[in-house]
């Protein structure tokens, strides 16, 4: 399924890898007296697709925002390739949000917005390529905010891909989509991955996680319960809560909001 980068545009593997490993040490985030991320430490390499799973409110989106530097931790450190998380590191990453932000422009101009550094013809060529891969050519002139949910999500992924990121964060990219849209989005994610981009993705869709994951991080109540290779995780999760989650059982201890 994975194609090697075929367009010569993807940056060299070694160059991309310089942003890794991701090292998180004693990371905490509190807000109004609630500890939402609780003393988390882990290390992540620059290959593959990592899936974050866990119950609603577990802290997955929060953790992702912290890793991307959109939120400042209350304590603890995050380094990417030994460097602190600064603007330069963030510029090598991209994020697609749970509710994608569409600029008040056409679908095509949403892509051009992040391609301003490319001269005319190169920019045109890149736009064509991105639109084609996201299957959006027929609606390129449509205002992005009038696109369907699935189309908006594909456009958001294409726009993130346009920045040629070393890391792509995706927060539930196919929540509430039909199987065909979900498939289209997964295909697109595989393409980005084939560019050499590390994928970190949140999903509640166990089927999707099984299809995409190389490794799984299970988050529960602001902590990392387990971080395992995917095959191992789905066969034998090392956490009681994760087992309950996968089997669709309620583990009342894991739920904050009940």
């Amino acid at each position, binding site marked *: 399924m994975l194609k090697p980068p075929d367009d010569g545009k993807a940056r060299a593997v070694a160059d991309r890898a310089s942003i890794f490993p991701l090292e998180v040490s004693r990371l905490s985030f509190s807000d109004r007296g609630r500890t939402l991320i609780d003393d988390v430490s882990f290390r992540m390499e620059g290959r593959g697709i990592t899936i974050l799973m866990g119950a609603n409110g577990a802290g997955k989106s929060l953790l992702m925002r912290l890793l*991307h530097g*959109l939120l400042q931790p209350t304590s603890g450190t995050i380094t990417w390739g030994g460097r602190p998380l600064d*603007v330069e590191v*963030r*510029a090598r*990453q*991209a*994020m697609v*949000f749970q509710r994608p*932000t569409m*600029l*008040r*422009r056409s679908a095509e101009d949403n892509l051009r*917005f*992040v391609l301003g550094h490319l001269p005319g013809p190169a920019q045109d060529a890149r736009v064509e390529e991105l639109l084609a891969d996201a299957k959006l050519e027929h609606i390129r002139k449509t*205002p992005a*905010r*009038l696109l369907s949910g699935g189309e908006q999500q594909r456009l958001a992924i294409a726009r993130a891909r346009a*920045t040629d990121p070393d890391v792509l964060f995706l927060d539930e990219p196919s929540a509430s989509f039909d199987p065909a849209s979900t498939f289209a989005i997964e295909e697109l994610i595989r393409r980005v991955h084939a560019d050499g981009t590390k994928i970190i993705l949140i999903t509640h869709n166990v089927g999707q996680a099984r299809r995409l994951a190389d490794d799984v991080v299970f988050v529960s109540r602001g902590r990392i319960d387990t971080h395992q290779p995917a095959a191992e995780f789905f066969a034998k999760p090392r956490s009681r809560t994760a087992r309950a989650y996968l089997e669709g059982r309620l583990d009342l201890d894991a739920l904050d909001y009940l």
Partner: protein
Amino acid sequence: MSESGSIFSLALGLVLSGDAELWSIIALSLRVSLTAVALACLIGLPLGAFLAVVRFPGRGAAVALLNAFMGLPPVVVGLFVYLMLSRSGPLGVFGLLYTPAAMIVAQTILVTPLIAALARQSLADLHGEYDELFRSLGLSTGATIAALIWDGRYSLSTAALAGFGRAIAEVGAVIIVGGNIEHVTRVMTTTIALETSKGNLALAMALGLILIALALGVNAAVLALNRTARRLAYA
């Protein structure tokens, strides 16, 4: 009743006959107010966007001041500009007092806070929506401001129209700094004030009709802009 009716038909006749004096007054009014609004947009839009985007100490006070300046009394602005431009004033050497340029300066000062305050309001909402994406993309403050102004273009046009409505209708500032000199600085509002006091009601009424038509036109344009923006989901 019949008297005001005949004044009304005289006024309508003036408008329709293309009376040269009438139209030169209208042309000057438009030139002054449109230039003032253009300048006010050049200053006010980036200023409003800046206040919507950048956090700095004293920002709250700056916004409060801007909102207060939205309602500046035109005569006070006129007086201020008069003092600046009068021969003994700091800018007196330019000899701008009683010229259209002075009127443009006064109206620019009058409507810049209005345009900036309205821009800040609508761009603050837009910025709330775009902020995480722009930070994720590592956009600079300048690029953020430019993108917000472009994506907020419909609501900003509405702000510009509001500024034009205020500029074209005010009389206090232009009469002080322009002096209402025939063929030089007479605009619609100052002419109405003068001709009414002289009892020349037909000309005053003719200009009044034009002003009302302009006001209606501005409102229609705002309505059309809002409708287009909503249709394109750009609102």
